[in-house]
């Protein structure tokens, strides 16, 4: 695998050892020490994935993520020192696909990077559009419309909606969704799913407070309702 990764991290030791670990795993790694430099680097070269520290000098990681999202659907994985729900929410709001909590072990980070790349590399699916209520999912074009209006979904939200719609009427547990959408197993950390479902509902439900398309099954998980 010779994917190119942009690593934006201000601490020199973490930056260097992470770069070494990723290089050992076969990736090509470019690094930047602050947010502004990272964004500059991103604009100048082509990358397959961006690893972004949240706390960065000059321009913080969330700002960098938002700036990247304005022009690109490249997978972005945040490195966060605080894995509080609020950080996860803010990171996903900014358009990140995943987050890795510091301190991390390099093999764990490599696994998460590979999972994100695998999802991004997933080609367009079968051509038949899926329907959920008034929501139409065009798998080939990876676009979603509600009552004919375009709905802008992130890659993660699109995958989540597709997965639930494919199993309409069937309860999918948080762990199953983590496994299928994010491609790995976080033991006991299902907030990612809850946050992503919340954001998806905000975009496709008529009243996100009383969802009718994607409903919560207490103690079990989520299911799509036709």
């Amino acid at each position, binding site marked *: 695998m010779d994917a190119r990764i942009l690593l934006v991290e201000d*601490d020199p*030791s*973490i930056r260097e*050892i*992470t770069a*070494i*670990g990723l290089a*050992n795993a076969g990736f090509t790694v470019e690094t930047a020490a602050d947010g502004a430099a990272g964004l500059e680097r991103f604009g100048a070269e082509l990358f397959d994935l961006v690893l972004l520290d949240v706390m960065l000098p000059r321009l913080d990681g969330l700002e960098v993520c938002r700036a990247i999202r304005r022009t690109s659907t490249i997978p972005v994985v945040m490195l966060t*020192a605080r894995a509080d*729900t609020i950080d996860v929410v803010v990171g996903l709001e900014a358009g990140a696909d995943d987050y890795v909590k*510091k*301190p*991390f*072990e*390099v*093999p*764990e*980070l490599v696994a998460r990077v590979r999972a994100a790349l695998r999802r991004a590399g997933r080609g367009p699916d079968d051509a038949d559009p899926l329907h959920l209520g008034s929501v139409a999912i065009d798998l080939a074009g990876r676009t979603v419309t509600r009552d004919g209006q375009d709905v802008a979904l992130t890659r993660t939200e699109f995958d989540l909606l597709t997965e639930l719609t494919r199993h309409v009427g069937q309860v999918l547990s948080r762990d199953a969704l983590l496994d299928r959408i994010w491609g790995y197993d976080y*033991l*006991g950390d299902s907030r990612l799913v809850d946050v992503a479902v919340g954001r998806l509902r905000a975009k496709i439900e008529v009243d996100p407070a009383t969802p009718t398309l994607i409903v919560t*099954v*207490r*103690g*079990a998980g989520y299911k799509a309702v036709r």
Partner: protein
Amino acid sequence: MLRRGGIRARLALTLVAMVALTATLLGTGAYVFVETSLHDQVLRDAATQARFDLSVTVPNRGLPAAPTPEDIVDSGLRETFLQRGVDTIADVGSGEPVVSKPDLVGELANLPPDFTKRVSDGELAYTWTTIAGHPSLVIGGRVGAAGPAFYFIHDISAIDEALGQFRLALTVGTIALILVALLVAQAVARGVLAPVEAASRAAERLEHGDLSARVPITSDDEFGTWADRFNRMAEALAETIGRLEAAEAQNRRFVADVAHELRTPLAALVAEASILREHLDSLPDASRRAGELLVSDIGRLRSLVDDLMEVSRFDAHAEQIAVEPVDLGLLVRAITASHLPEASLVLPDRPLVIDTDPRRLDRILANLLDNAREHAPGASVAVSLATHDAAGEIVVAVTDRGPGVPRDRLARIFERFYKADPSRHGGSSGLGLAIAAEHAALLGGYLTASDLVEGGLRMELRLPVTGSLRHGDGMAIGGEDAIAAPIRHQES
């Protein structure tokens, strides 16, 4: 509020009792004096008049020596006396007594016998009695030694009526006086004891941690001095506690800062160690062991810093709980499987779902299991989940058959950095159980530790049944059903 036996009540009661006694004595005395004086006056006047009538008025009418009733009637004496408002009964010894009005017929026989006897014996006598329905003074005497007997009847209704009103006035006055005394006594007692109450309120506030509580100094007397002393004591207390709290807060901030500052180099160390670990085999023999130790020590350092961070979050009250329905059986099974897979499990055969924070449960149970693994290495460990109906609690117990903890140290094992066995230097930070206890408190529960007679330690997490027990399928049913559900013990 009057408290039975309280100083205020006793003070008030004493004052009222004194007033009541005084008023009653004075009233009774005054009444007796007035009654006696009035009666004496009436008696004196009536006796003087009777003496005069018997020796002058009657003889002057020229009655025969032994007059008949008709003589008396003809003499016009009845009318003479009646003009003065005095009724008479004249007894001549034979025939019917002559009365001044029809009501008096037969009344002679109703007079006390010893009185009429004294009159017939020739004395001038009197009696207080009721004649024809009226309270009266009767004075009797004979004209000469053997003349007719005259009974002069003075109606004293008016006097008695006046006395009755006087009695009523005295009674009402006494009662009013007692009521007024009660009010005054209350007010006086309140006034006297107000400083005591203010002081006890201040002491109560201090007791509840309000260090700004002071006693108002309202007087220059002994109480004022005492209040001043009290306030100085409170001042000193507040100052000392304030100093201690500031020191404590500084300490905690320091711990939080240290933990925070350690995080970045630690993150680098963890990443570095993870790569080093993968290449340990390619290190020369001379440095491989050092590499292994480095990797494992960084692991220890990491858990210490993680625990310190967690503890400082508790100290900063920055912890929030995220409640969701949790199937406890599934959770306990999953946590046990990842932290101590060789432990045996005893779970209820029906799903036990409560609203709680699964991440905190994970932290608590993981810390209990880590503790068991570390302090009872190789010993068998059992994990059980059960409901305790009587206490309304859910009990998750981790029981090991290791060396246990001496009873005198048991109470301290939830303290930070407390090591029940100081000779043991395990990988734990010494904070695990303290952290577990903090999490348990956030969930509304608590941890207990007890030693087993047959050797070993039993740690219990007790959580309140919040009334939200449900079956695992998400269907809400009555909580009691779920609690009362039979619990089948199973080993796995």
